[in-house]
């Protein structure tokens, strides 16, 4: 690989895809002001893509959704496409997925539609450097903070690579995509709002990932959970991974752009570490909740 230390640059958006956003590790610590965490949904995949590109683990990169995207850097840059599996090409020629590839200045890097998983990650050596908001470059689709989702013709500043990307010896350990999503669950804080039968249903029934899932939450289809008590819950703080049950009774697992407070009862919480795989589950995937 020839040297790619050519300083800062600009990334042109050729094809934005269905939903492509800039993400980093997010902006924890502001929930008391109504500001959510945001950040990459599949943190291990984003970290690995950054590492292979020679970046620090929290560098800003692109998160694609199902349909990929295409970009054109104005300087030669090393890029890594990981997360959801897909075809990758540079100016129409196939290149490696999941490993560093050299994209010459002016060439188009095309990230194809996902063949497995949902969210793809495009890391560039040096990272992306749009203006941070409250310490993060992440787009928050609920609050509108951070850079807006990519549109055709947008440009994004590329950072300066810190050094040569690490030599990649053999394939990186990207996880496979399970055909069934098993989510560990800690009951509470509001499981007492549901009948004993509903709690049994939650941990025994087969749910499916709803096509209405997004960065705010993984919505499910399946049996509705029956409430043991009516009424509204006064607004209270919500954690990442909270399983909120709206009036239709269908559990929603909160992902990174979730609201910071809410008034529907949270029957249980999926630990953060189990959410990366949830972010890659395609609509229709079977979901089982199991007691942690």
């Amino acid at each position, binding site marked *: 690989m020839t040297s790619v230390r050519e300083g800062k640059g600009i990334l042109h958006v050729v094809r934005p895809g269905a939903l492509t956003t800039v993400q980093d590790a997010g902006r*924890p610590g*502001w*929930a008391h*002001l109504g500001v959510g965490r945001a950040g990459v949904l599949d943190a291990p995949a984003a970290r690995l893509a950054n590492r292979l590109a020679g970046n620090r683990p929290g560098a800003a990169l692109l998160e694609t959704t199902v349909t990929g995207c295409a970009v054109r850097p104005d300087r030669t840059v090393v890029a890594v496409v990981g997360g959801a599996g897909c075809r990758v090409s540079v100016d129409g020629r196939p290149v490696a997925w999941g490993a560093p590839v050299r994209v010459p200045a002016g060439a188009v890097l095309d990230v194809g539609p996902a063949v497995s998983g949902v969210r793809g990650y495009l890391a560039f050596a040096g990272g992306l450097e749009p203006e941070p*908001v409250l310490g993060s470059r992440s787009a928050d689709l609920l609050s509108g903070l951070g850079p807006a989702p990519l549109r055709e013709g947008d440009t994004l500043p590329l950072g300066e690579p810190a050094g040569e990307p690490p030599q990649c010896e053999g394939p990186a350990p990207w996880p496979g995509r399970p055909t069934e999503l098993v989510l560990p669950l800690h009951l509470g804080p509001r499981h007492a709002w549901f009948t004993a039968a509903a709690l049994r249903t939650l941990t025994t029934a087969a749910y499916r990932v709803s096509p209405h899932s997004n960065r705010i939450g993984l919505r499910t289809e399946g049996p509705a959970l029956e409430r043991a008590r009516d009424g509204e819950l006064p607004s209270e*703080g919500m*954690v990442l991974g909270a399983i909120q049950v709206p009036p239709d009774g269908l559990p929603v697992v909160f992902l990174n752009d979730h609201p*910071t407070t809410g008034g529907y009862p949270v029957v249980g*919480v*999926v630990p953060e570490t189990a959410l990366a795989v949830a972010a890659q589950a395609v609509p229709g995937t079977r979901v089982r909740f199991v007691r942690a």
Partner: protein
Amino acid sequence: MSRGDGGTNQGDDGTKVRVLPAGPHALLVELADGQHAEAFHAELLRRRERGALPGVREIVPGARTVLLDGIPDGILDGIEDPRGGGGRVPTARDRLARELLSWQLPPLHRETHDAVEIPVVYDGPDLDEVAALWGVGADEVPALHSRTAFRVAFCGFAPGFGYLTGLPERLHVPRRTTPRTKVPAGALALAGPYTGVYPRPSPGGWQLIGRMVDPAALWDPAREPAALLGPGTRVRFVAAEPERVPVPLTEAGS
């Protein structure tokens, strides 16, 4: 706590504190009402200031709760108890839950700093409806509302949106039966016990009684603090003369 079923403590003044688990790294503390939640929140901030809550990433007040999120793991969490007995070492979350239940809360000292004054024009599209619900004339709404001492109970819905309490119960109003698809930034709105000001245009079901003269002041991420109305902030609304304030270009919708 270790079975995830929470803990309860009966306080000296007969009020209950419940500590509920919210996943492996968070606790939801539920108080009897908003005032006790305010006192508990103030105590949490005092202790954090002193370094007594290391690693707790978020302290998020709610209507009558406080959420503590991002409680770090202890290094011995969950291993077999070295003192024998076959039990497991309680996790950092469970140890903190036990500690929270033992707290004696000092009586609430409302901070003495001056209230934030927010100039508003009382000319919202729901002014007549709110006046009817209050049983007064529409011209009396501004005085009743602006003489109230408000406080930000908690935030949510959007960055910079505070849920303000202070209106006496007889002035609480229900949400609109049909929410608006578009409420302009700066709209001064009522729902239930709360008053709020929309920091940006959005759909909304609250009753609109006026508009803030300078809504951009509500939220500015480049400013420290970013939110004008953070939890605990005292607020007073000041009626401004409508003829001196331009009507915003965005329509309130119907």
